[in-house]
């Protein structure tokens, strides 16, 4: 099958695409990897095992895992309510799910600060604590699991559930034996995307967490600080750690998706 693009040539299109991708994405990301090993593997190891870097990475990974678990539970629950429940205003609720994708991250941080900050109208102040880190990450990752589970649940036949109920299965039994197994792949996919997003998050965290080293400073904030103090080797080392982690997740998800579509076809 030939490419019927304009300008008359596949090669020209390939060249343009590859050049654009290289100038914008590939060469710069390659430079980060290069910079981190620039002064040898020893320097890389030294930079990444520095106590402040280790603390930042630990906080980032642990908090991200915690919020992914919350997302799996609440995301599935919200998706269920949006698909199987009926109530006035459901359409509006459905459309605000995407708000975290549309709202700039720095504004997201400021909105959370307005409700959970120093002069909180409900008297809850989480600023400069680890709770603030989790809260901001929950905000920005909210849509991933909901939007992954929703279409699957939408296509899931309700008759199976009705049959199970008429045979005397309890609600919990129906959920565990029928709904959950069908949703698991979508929940995993949503969780992986949410995790990849959470470990790199920056904008929503800078205002509300206070960025205290060894306490509320996440990996991306650590990197930013090292760039500002002109220590690009240390910045690049932690950046490579994040880069490898998110690329591994992305490729694993791609493989998982392919395996799933082959599995379903066959």
């Amino acid at each position, binding site marked *: 099958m030939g*490419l*019927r*693009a*304009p300008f008359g040539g*596949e090669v020209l*299109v*390939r060249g*343009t*695409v590859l050049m*654009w*991708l290289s100038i*914008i*994405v590939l060469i710069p*990301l390659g*430079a*980060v990897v290069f910079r981190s090993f620039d002064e040898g593997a020893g320097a890389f190891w030294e930079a990444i095992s520095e106590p402040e870097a280790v603390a930042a990475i630990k906080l980032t990974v642990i908090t991200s895992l915690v919020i992914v678990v919350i997302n799996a539970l609440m995301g599935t*629950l*919200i998706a*269920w309510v949006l698909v199987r*429940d009926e*109530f006035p205003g459901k359409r509006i*609720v459905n*459309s*605000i799910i*995407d*708000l975290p994708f*549309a*709202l*700039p991250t*720095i*504004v997201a941080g*400021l*909105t*959370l600060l307005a409700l959970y900050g120093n002069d909180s*109208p409900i008297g809850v102040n989480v600023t400069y604590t680890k709770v603030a880190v989790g809260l901001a990450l*929950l*905000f920005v990752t*909210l*849509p991933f699991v909901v*939007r992954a589970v929703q*279409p699957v649940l939408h296509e899931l036949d309700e008759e199976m559930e009705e049959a199970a109920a008429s045979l005397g299965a309890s*609600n919990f039994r129906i959920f565990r034996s029928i709904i959950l197994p069908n949703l698991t792949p979508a929940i995993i*996919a949503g969780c992986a*995307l949410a995790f*990849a997003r959470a470990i*790199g998050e*920056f*904008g929503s965290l*800078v205002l509300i967490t206070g960025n205290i080293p060894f306490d509320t400073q996440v990996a*991306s*904030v650590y990197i*930013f600080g090292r760039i500002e103090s002109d220590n*690009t080797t240390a910045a690049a080392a932690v*950046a490579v750690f994040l880069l490898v982690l998110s*690329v591994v*997740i*992305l490729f694993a998800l*791609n493989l998982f998706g*392919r395996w799933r*579509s082959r599995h379903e076809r066959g």
Partner: protein
Amino acid sequence: MSVVNPFARYGMRFAALLYLGLLLAIPLVMIFVKTFEDGFREPLEAVTSEEGLHAFYLTLLCVGIAVPLNTIFGVLCALMIVRDKFPGKSIINSLIDLPFAVSPVVIGLALFLVYGVDGFIGGPLDDMGIQIIFSTPGLVLATIFVSLPFVVREVVPVLQEIGDDQEQAASTLGANAWQTFWRVTLPSIRWGVTYGVVLASARALGEFGAVAVVSGRISGETETLPLLVQNEYDNFNVAGAYAAAIVLAILAVLILLSMNLLRRRSSGDEDEELGLQVVAQPAKEV
């Protein structure tokens, strides 16, 4: 619906709405309340100050350059992914998604290392008197990076679905490649392209981390709206921060509305509730 007992159903509805309310809805309302609690004059002055207007202009400039370029790239790239065949194509297909996976700060660092004065592209350019990092071109580059995959990811599934029967028919009837593209291909992918453009604009408008690294924060010069929000907040001008944030929040709500309209329009189904394909589904094998 008959399956679930009403008690459990109301309980779950309540839990879902409470969670969404506390995390999304109430904070968003709060930002409007906080901005306008002392009247409209102060926020209006902050937004129309020289600094505020310049930040607004700079943000629009970045979006205005990045999104059209990425749209052209996106359509070409989608055509290549769906219709072309060559070794290594599936690797390129995966690499397109990198900007979704990489932390904004890492993106900023990456551009800084290559296009900064010590970088191997930025160095020679600097000798010629062209400054990229800590200047407007750097902001544009960062914006292009973060909004790169959106159009591709929206157009690829549409192209796969329509197939190339019509295009083949057009060329059999004597249309050249250019005519086929404008008269057959483009009209059938237009909603996919539009949706991708909306998503890319949303991301481009609000980008903070990548832009923060390459901007150098020269107030009134390399400060976009999201950077202005943080700068005002750090300088204890909370009213100014809220005023700049409200402009971005209003733009975000407009984008959200157009996303919903487009989704219904492109699917032609009032009940269609599918979310953002681009983030909710891992890339499929092509």
